[in-house]
């Protein structure tokens, strides 16, 4: 009896240990580091001086990158939603026996490395590439206009990288949608657009919420896209944190920016879930 009751906790244990070891401990360490004396260095060592001033200093220096992260991630999330929703809709409701094949196609890019894919974008968007050539010919781009090293390139890459994370949850919730509800809406005088707005979209909100979170959160912390496809003018907070830890070796500042990023994401996510989560997920 006692063993039976203890079992669930025993099963929890490995997971809890894992979290404490690899998430909680580093997070506490990171928070502590963000409050170290900024005058210290790796060679001289850091002193814990509760320097809350690290935060305003970091924002003053890299507020632009922080803002850009959220801006780019927001744009990429929106683009992924606009591209991913019709895709998920067709796969879930119209694809019939092609359903599984199309799903594999959505996931297939993830079989190759993130880095390789981003480098491939570099080739696709290069000044001498076909895309730029075509856009120039169509006068959608100035004769000397370029895509590489612009915000467009970075946002495109972010969108592309996280699209599967948008499509899969959308697909899951659309697939569960009872097609008879769509019939019922049509029978009750809803035109196709109204069927979508009044029935399909509200019932797929769990997928929309999950998809936007799974896209937005990693996109905010991304630094590979800006690094490979942008210039310092497109750098996001990830690039700054990367540099703070690995180039400038300014650990307190890197840690302060990391904590800020986490806190900001947390606030945004909670706000988004409050707005659209409970009514549809509950």
């Amino acid at each position, binding site marked *: 009896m006692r063993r039976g009751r203890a079992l669930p906790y025993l099963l929890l244990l490995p997971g809890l240990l894992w979290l404490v070891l690899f998430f909680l401990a580093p997070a506490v360490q990171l928070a502590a580091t963000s409050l170290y004396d900024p005058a210290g260095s790796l060679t001289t060592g850091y002193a814990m001086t509760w320097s809350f001033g690290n935060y305003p200093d970091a924002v003053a220096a890299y507020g632009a990158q922080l803002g850009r992260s959220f801006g780019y991630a927001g744009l990429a999330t929106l683009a992924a939603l606009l591209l991913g929703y019709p895709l998920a809709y067709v796969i879930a409701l119209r694809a019939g026996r092609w359903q599984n094949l199309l799903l594999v196609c959505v996931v297939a890019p993830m079989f190759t490395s993130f880095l390789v894919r981003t480098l491939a974008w570099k080739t696709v968007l290069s000044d001498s590439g076909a895309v730029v050539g075509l856009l120039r010919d169509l006068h959608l781009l100035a004769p000397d206009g370029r895509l590489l090293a612009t915000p467009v390139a970075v946002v495109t890459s972010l969108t592309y990288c996280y699209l599967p994370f948008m499509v899969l949850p959308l697909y899951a919730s659309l697939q569960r949608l009872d097609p008879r509800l769509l019939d019922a809406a049509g*029978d*009750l005088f*809803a*035109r196709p657009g109204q069927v979508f707005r009044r*029935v399909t979209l509200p019932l797929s909100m769990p997928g929309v919420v999950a998809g936007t979170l799974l896209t937005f959160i990693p996109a905010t912390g991304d630094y590979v896209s800006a690094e490979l496809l942008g210039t310092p003018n497109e750098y996001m907070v990830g690039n700054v944190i990367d540099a703070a830890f690995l180039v400038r070796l300014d650990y307190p500042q890197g840690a302060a920016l990391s904590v800020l990023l986490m806190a900001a994401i947390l606030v945004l996510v909670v706000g988004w879930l409050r707005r659209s989560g409970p009514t*549809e997920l509950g």
Partner: protein
Amino acid sequence: MATEEPFHGPGPGEPAGALRLVDLTMRYGDVTAVDRLDLTVPAGSFFALLGPSGCGKTSTLRMVAGLAEPTGGRILLDDEDITRLRPYRRPVNTVFQNYALFPHLDVFENVAFGLRRRRQPDVAGQVRRMLSLVALDGYERQRPSQLSGGQQQRVALARALVNRPRVLLLDEPLGALDLALRRRMQLELKRLRAEVGGTFVHVTHDQEEAMTLADTVAVMNAGRIEQLGTPAELYEFPATAFVATFLGRSNLLAGRVYGRDGDDLLVQAYGRRFSVPSARARADSGEVLLGVRPEKVRLVDTPEQVPAGHQWLDGTVGEVGYLGVSTEYSVRTGAGVELSVFAAADGEAPRIPPGTPVVAHWHPRHAFLLHGGSTFRDAGTAAPPPVPPPPVPLSAGPE
């Protein structure tokens, strides 16, 4: 005006919802679900489409609602061709099999859905009145998942009826309910129909439900209408072996018409001779099925006790089934055919034990004659084994 007299169906002068299906066909790949169906549903009738599962009832309703495009044929509503009309333009609403209520909307919004799409005035008032008509006042803010099966059923009804459709389509609306609730909802449906009016097309595989509710019943089988008429007409004088066995039970004796005697057709079956009034015959020559309902057959001890003018077969009682209101005897006749006999449990006659020799008899006017041959095979398990009659009559019938 809609707010003054909300639930009257079409008013005077308005078309009243006469539905005509002409040559309607639905094929899925090489499955023909609905096969050149011709059907007229009079305006204002309570019409039942009765048939076994898979005979094409849902497919027919979906075409009328505009949710499925017919492979061929036409649909006319009050003489207007609506075959190609989009579903949201048809003055027709559906109560779906398993209801299909919107899970993300509460009861009020479910019922208001159609009114809002058509921008009707006084949505709140109309919804409230409709909900009180189906005895769901106070449930406005509940979600469908919080309701019982019977309540969900009534929401589905209200959601369709509030739009005052010219034709209300009901796809096995009571199929998911337990027996007691089903009986209650049948009465409820009748009452609602009296208050709301309009044409109701009620699809069901339950013959008792169809006969209780409808003023006209169409029996459907394998994508076609076998017979159409009032419940009494269908029961008293079925047109095919399928109808005779699907709507109630029938004893069907395979035989052959060998002559005519005034207004009677003479039939030879299992070596016996029988007669059937020609007014009760669907066939007057060749292979036939002589039918008689089990409750029209009586049992006596000896041929001498058979009343004058009755026809009989002798045999022994096989299984005896107690049904409460009646007792069912299975009589194995000397001629080799099994007869089913219902004896009313009126407390008068004693139960006959198995093995007792008996004589089963009936009056010719209770018999009916159907085409034999191919329809016979469609009748399925309820039909007797196809024993060919011996060429020469061995013993004469009672006449």
